[in-house]
């Protein structure tokens, strides 16, 4: 079983489960940093990434997702290619102009069913197993 290993990112001793993944927009692959978030239903990215890449993100399916303060944010959902390690696959990816956190989030849909993900803080690594 292929196992892909990522180091936790550490800031002043605080560990963050952030990894670098590939995202294909139109014909171009973009490396992007994401925070692995088992509490997020979808992979959610700042809309400014799509704007910067010239990708028509507003052509996606508009849904509203509830966030921590109880409010709803608009999200434009797309089926896009992602790459984690050498694995490429199509995933539901949403873009929002009102993400409200500094990070892009790698959520459960299309990801947690594909990989067995282990958060190993003691070893300071995350592993993705297919």
């Amino acid at each position, binding site marked *: 079983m292929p196992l892909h290993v*990522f*180091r*936790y*990112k*550490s*800031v*002043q001793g*605080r560990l*963050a489960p*952030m*990894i*670098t*993944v*590939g995202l294909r927009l139109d014909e*171009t*692959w*973009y*490396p*992007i*940093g994401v*925070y692995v978030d088992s*509490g997020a239903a979808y992979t959610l990215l*700042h809309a*400014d*990434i799509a*704007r*910067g*890449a010239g990708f028509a993100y507003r052509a996606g399916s508009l849904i509203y997702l509830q966030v*921590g303060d109880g409010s709803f944010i608009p999200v434009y959902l797309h089926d896009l290619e992602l*790459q984690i*390690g*050498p694995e*490429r696959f199509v995933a539901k990816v949403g873009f929002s102009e009102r993400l409200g*956190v*500094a*990070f*892009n989030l790698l959520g459960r849909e299309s990801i947690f069913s594909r990989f067995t993900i282990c958060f190993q803080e003691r070893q300071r690594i995350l592993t993705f197993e297919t």
Partner: protein
Amino acid sequence: MRRHEERRMEAIVLQEYDEWLAEHLEELISQYPSKVVAVHLGQVVYIGDSEAEVYQWVRQRGLTPMPLVFRVPQQEDLEAIL
């Protein structure tokens, strides 16, 4: 076969960016909080206020491989995320 090799190359690039972030995130947070940076070949090559601005710069330069464009969090962002 060629497609397989292409994926391996991409995977190496992603891994290099990920390792670079693991080594330098703390430094980025202290130097460029809330900024968006482009990282290429182990160096910060551009600092901007938005991904749109940084990608525009990247496109003009035609850099390969594609730089990692990264929104630098503030220290408190890491403390506050649920």
